[in-house]
């Protein structure tokens, strides 16, 4: 079981003061994945594992903070070694960030490290 790691540059995400920002992480290609979500200025983990409709916070409280997301994907689909991960923010712009990559063999793990700066 090999692990491939990809670290992406931070993405600026604009939010509105009054609206709640909600995060959903989708692991595509019928693979299995889990994520660790935390703010860059805190050691506390907000959520771990599957992330669906997770309330990150109100826009006003998020502005100026960085959200760090580490997503690990286990390639369980024998039909493809491609990996696709989508980070979906409700009430934010951009609302979707899609990451495409691949692993070398079935059973490998792909680690995606991303961060979002709320502005």
């Amino acid at each position, binding site marked *: 079981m090999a692990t491939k790691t990809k670290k992406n540059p931070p993405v600026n995400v604009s939010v509105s003061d009054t609206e709640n920002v909600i995060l959903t992480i989708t692991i*595509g290609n*019928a693979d*299995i*994945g889990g994520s660790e979500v935390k703010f860059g200025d805190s050691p506390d983990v907000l959520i771990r594992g599957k992330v669906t409709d997770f309330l990150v916070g109100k826009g006003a409280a998020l502005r100026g903070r960085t959200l760090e997301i580490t997503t*690990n994907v286990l390639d369980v*689909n024998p039909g493809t070694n491609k990996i696709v991960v989508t980070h979906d923010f409700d009430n934010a712009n951009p609302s979707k960030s899609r990451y495409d990559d691949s692993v070398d063999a079935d*059973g490998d793990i792909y680690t995606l490290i991303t961060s979002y700066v709320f502005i």
Partner: protein
Amino acid sequence: MKKLLTILLITCTSAAYGQDTTLRSLNDLYIPNSPGLILGDKSPSSVDKPTTPRAFAVSLINLAQGGALEVTPYWLKSKPNYTYTDWVKRKFTMLETFNISVASYKTNNTFTVAPGLRTQILRIFSKKSKDSLLKAEAELSFLLGAHVLDTAKINQKRDELRKIQVKGLFALEVAGAILGSSTDNSFKKMDLQKSGVWANVRWDPSDAPLSVVGLGRYSWAGSKLNNKSDSTFLDLGVSLSYVGRKIDLSAEYVSRKDYQANKRYGRVAVVLNYLLSENIILVASTGKNFSNVNDIIAVFGVKFGVSTQKAKL
């Protein structure tokens, strides 16, 4: 006496393994993974598995020089919204599992190509299996969400997942392949020399240590250009496997209709494993091959040997 017993034991064990290999090789009740590669009767040294449409096109062109190719077109393009949960719940999996395999061989005089298709039309997990798969997925997701990955636990959970995926399901698969040969490297004068069609129904109940497989297979060999037929068979078979705590029993029966000889005959094979202790398995096997003179392919016998591997059909 001790020497005689040792020789007898070694002889019996060797004979047992020889016969079991024969029985195993006779088991055609499962559809081959790559029908195109199987029909060519040759094992390609490497199989090209393109992951993009462009790579697929390049691989196809390369086949003209000889080689092997295997691809599942549905996954050539990523499916960002197709989750593992969707895969478990989906019953009609024809597109996702539609697989193309092609092998080609080139010599000085001839060019042979064997394309094959395979797909799982239907796959229904029992409620128990579905629940177990989704539970295992959630557990794996949690493990994959850890700051430091516990790869040993992830591996263990993935193995559990694989085991659940083959139990508690009903599946219908079909496959087909043809083999053609040309003496002038042109498709116009390609002579169809072999063809085969497989259909396979599998039932693995989740609450019983049983597995039932039914197979229909049509195979033809000859020369279409010369209007010559060497063999035409229609096989209908069934296999039953029981895996208990100490006993494994596998049995299969295949009825063959030989259109050339206009005759029908059958083949039967049975393998029994009994786990005497952790390292000792008693094996008994017997069978009768296709033949109109009732050829026995393995004389019944109980074999004693030290082995950690169970013989399987």
